[in-house]
């Protein structure tokens, strides 16, 4: 675009990227959780009151005590809440419209946030669709799918 103030010279414009290559340690609890995902298993952790927190936290959400008893939970669960994403942006889990949902996995007493591929309603049963290549990240769960 020509601009009076630039003496008719078109202004330059460029696409730039600024990126920080963060490389962080996980700690033993999150590390075990991520290791489990790589092996297609989901771990929670038993809280002081006996409830299972999933994803696991390092400290009890109520008392702050360190937690140490990791337990395996199911790969199916129940949607407790959801929100519809009609226009996904770059970097979102799926490139087509999807639901972001809170999912309480069988055996867990808390819900985890993840993506459901397809329409969903509170109370629906869903199951994990694993990524083909898993490396120990939350994206090893490609998405959840409704159980028909």
């Amino acid at each position, binding site marked *: 675009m020509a601009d009076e*103030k630039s003496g008719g010279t078109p*202004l*330059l*414009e460029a696409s*730039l990227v*600024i*990126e920080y*290559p963060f490389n962080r340690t996980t700690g*033993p609890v999150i590390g075990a959780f991520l290791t489990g995902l790589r092996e297609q298993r989901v771990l929670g952790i038993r809280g002081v009151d006996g409830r299972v927190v999933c994803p696991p936290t390092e400290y009890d959400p109520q008392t702050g005590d*360190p937690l140490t008893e990791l337990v395996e939970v199911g790969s199916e669960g129940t949607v407790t809440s959801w929100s519809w994403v009609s226009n996904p942006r770059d970097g979102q889990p799926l490139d087509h419209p999807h639901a972001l949902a809170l999912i309480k996995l069988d055996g867990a007493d808390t819900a985890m946030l993840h993506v459901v591929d397809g329409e969903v309603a509170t109370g629906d049963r869903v199951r994990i669709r694993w990524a083909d290549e898993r490396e120990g990240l939350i994206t090893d769960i490609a998405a959840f799918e409704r159980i028909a």
Partner: protein
Amino acid sequence: MPPADTDTDRTVSEMPDGLWSMPQPTVPAPIADVAEPIQRIRVPASMHYRYTPGTAPTRFLLGLAEKKILGERDPVNGDVYVPPRGMSPVVGLPTTEQVELSDHGSLAAFCVVHIGFGVNAPPTPFVSALVLLDGAATSVYGTLLEIPIEEVRIGMRVEAVWVDDAELTTSFENIRYWRPLDEPDVPAATLQGHM
């Protein structure tokens, strides 16, 4: 474990025993026994954006594409600013006169970089430099190569090493790096007081 990355995994590629401050949890058998449990993750954070340099930097960048370094003169005190921002930071008036500068200058400040970063950084250690171009009142940033680090000194004369003409773009990266000139140093005192 992610593959080794020599840029960012410098010293802590293995977690020593006892590193964590929290107690070791018990892990169910199928997970406890796997080889190479996850101990660290790579989570890059990036921003993608459109950059518009504005009128004066556009003039400067268009000059670079022709291998010219164009500063702009302060209308009051006559100082030449490079890269130009279109106005005088001293008196607040627009700069109007373009001045072509030499690609020779003097080393105004430097730093020896031991921790590399970014895709364009040379191998460490290297010298990061501020060069005061002849005739300019502000210095430009670059990398100083072709000299042993212990011989680098403020006041030494340097020149730009450009990319091949066929590779010239509207980018300051047209100047690949700076290298020593075989000329006597200028007194460091003459480099003081510049922005």
